[in-house]
């Protein structure tokens, strides 16, 4: 078995996409009894052929209350776990109600600053879902975030919030969850930006700061002052102060004999 295989299996992107497209085509001829034993109460009944938009056995809609609950408690990791599990186990992933799960999932990844996986989720969506206005908005937000284009991030986030605020958007619970999560995302994003700018800038103009934070001067200055940033009103220049995000290591309060023994033991092991 020492000779290599003639061709490697289709593992890289384009070939995988081809495989997946072949799989997708046969997904429509699916047997309904291959239902999973997931926590959604889907039973083994066959699915009606052209599925009406809202169905009682729809796993996405069934799991959504739980997702909403986790979102209000800000338990992102659990939300991601449940959403991914639903994604895998759902038998029909072409239906639009998948948005109930996908949108919170992507937003949760963004809040956790897990950008590559958020992009992978977007890439694996079928064309119809990707074309939906909600996803294209979310997609542009992700793209802006990935490029580090601060102004665009704030404008896209606002666009998303505005979109779900329209009366034509008929899912009020989803709108609520989206609003809450976008807010969380913006707040954690601003925190991270704050730390980064404290480290990266010795001085910056007010207008630049407004761009980075997406806030006007009157909201920004109090926050900056609270963290010790000096502001020169004449030149409109802010002087950030580098904060210790996490102090490297606290020196141990008092070194005990036990500590000493332990360290001596470790050193002796080193001799071996």
């Amino acid at each position, binding site marked *: *078995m*020492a000779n*290599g*295989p*003639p*061709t*490697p*299996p*289709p*593992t*890289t*992107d*384009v*070939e*995988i*996409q081809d495989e*997946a497209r072949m*799989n*997708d*085509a046969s*997904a*429509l*001829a*699916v*047997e309904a*009894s*291959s239902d*999973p*034993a997931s926590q959604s109460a889907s039973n083994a009944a066959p699915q009606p052929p052209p599925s009406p938009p809202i169905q009682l056995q729809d796993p996405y809609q069934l799991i959504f209350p739980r997702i909403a609950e986790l979102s209000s408690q800000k338990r992102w990791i659990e939300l991601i776990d449940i959403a*991914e*599990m639903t*994604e*895998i186990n759902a038998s029909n992933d072409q239906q639009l109600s998948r948005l109930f799960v996908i949108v919170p999932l992507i937003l949760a990844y963004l809040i956790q600053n*897990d*950008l*590559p*996986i958020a992009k*992978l989720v977007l*890439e*694996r969506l079928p064309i119809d879902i990707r074309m939906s206005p909600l996803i294209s908005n979310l997609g542009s937000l992700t793209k802006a975030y990935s*490029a*580090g284009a*601060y102004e665009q991030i704030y404008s896209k986030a606002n666009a998303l919030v505005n979109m779900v605020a329209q009366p034509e958007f008929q899912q009020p619970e989803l709108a609520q969850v989206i609003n809450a999560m976008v807010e969380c995302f913006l707040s954690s994003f601003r925190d991270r930006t704050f730390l980064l700018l404290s*480290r*990266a*800038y*010795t*001085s*910056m103009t007010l207008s*630049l700061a407004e761009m980075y934070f997406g806030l006007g001067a009157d909201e920004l200055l109090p926050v900056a002052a609270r963290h010790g940033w000096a502001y020169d009103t004449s030149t409109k*220049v802010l002087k950030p102060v580098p904060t210790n995000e*996490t102090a*490297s*290591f*606290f020196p*141990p309060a008092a070194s005990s004999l036990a500590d000493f023994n*332990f*360290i001596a033991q*470790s050193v002796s092991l080193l001799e*071996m």
Partner: protein
Amino acid sequence: MAPDSQSIDGLVQQITTSNNLEALAHTLRTSGTSGRDVREFILASSMSSGQDPLSVLDLRNNTLGVMYILSARLNIYLNAQSGVQRPPWAIVTQFCEIFDPEQARLAPERIVMLAKSLTRYAQEQGKLKLAIPLLYSLATRLPITLSTLTPIHHILLLTTLQARHITPEITRLLIEHPIDDLYMYSNIYPDHNLSYIDNLVYHYLGGVILTKTGNYTAAIDYFETALTAPSTTNSPPAGLQLEALKKLRLVQCIAMGGPQPLPKYTSPVLTRILKSTPYQNLINAFPGSLHAKDRGEGPSSGNNRLKQLVSKDRDFYASECNLGLVELLVAEAPKWVIKRLTETYVTLGLAEIGRYVGIDDEQQVRALVLKMIESKTIIATISDSGIVTFHDAPDTADVSVEDIRTLLGDVASGTNLTEISVPVLLEAVQVQSTHLAQLDMEVGRSKEFIAKAIKTGGGISSMSMGGPGSGFGPGGAFPDEDDYVAGMYANDREDTMVFG
């Protein structure tokens, strides 16, 4: 009590009443007077009462029996479809989640069979992603540690990629549990054993997945492992290893600025072949590489050259499915130009940086520099007039929280990492060193290693044997301090040898 192992009823009875698992395993494995195929059919049939044997057996307590029946049924259903009742998917899922690993280890080849059949079934139904959690469960629960490679691992990764469903769980498995052991067993079905290609495929696909999720350092490790997997002497390296080398080089450029030296035990055939491909020119033109001829040559010419090289061979890269990585490489090139600038300049204006990099828009340059500061690629500060000042690395180790997290493993998941004190850190390091010493000892004990050591003679005596302090010569003279006699170094005595 002559147990009837020729009918399904008899088998079920044995499974449910047996107290001795080893005996049961033996009974199930040996097909007796009937051939192997007939035995598979028997396992796949319904009971004489028409009942499904799976409804009689308990999935957890009778794991061994259920394993045989499930794997036989799925296999025959897929291959022959001759009236064999397909096991309900819900049962398969439940089994994968709750099976008893100890029982499963008595006949691991059946689990491998099950893994392969269920993947094939899911694929034929067009729902490949359903197989992913099941494969994950099988692959992680079957072996004793999570870092042991089974024949199921590479199927898991292949399925993940084909279904395009990469989850944080898989990434975590790859990063936190790199392979350090192999799950080998002897069995009567040689095609369900762990093979050399499985290892290659696993590490190659692992590298691909980790590259997609942006974990470049781990991806580099995985590609290197695939690339340097030893083959038997005198046989050429596998084609997959060449692919791994190509991707390794590309990722090294993206993540580290240029190609890094390969381990010494890499096959030279691979490097020779790579030199004749367009990849070599591309890598050499990359700003961080040692060969880049445009060090200090005019501004942005290097970047243009990269783009030219790429557009010239675009179709080639696309046919090798590396175009995405190559384009990413071109996009990341400016960063490494900037990194090189830090070696020469202490301060530089944003506009000047833009000229070097070939980007006119100052805002874009600013964003780029900020990104590099964020990822800690450079240490710099920007002033309001747009002057960037580069700093040297601080004296105190700037160890970030995340670097420590993987070292501490499970310890740190709940605790606040800022309060980790030195003793805790020392303890974690100690655990790692004992683990390493153990691995070292195991390698030193292995038959092949000792055989080779004796053959190559005293030259390697002081190498990686944990410092025994006494070498051994080529079967002839021995140092005076030892009492060893020449005969004691025969291979069959290796487990009584004492070092040092």
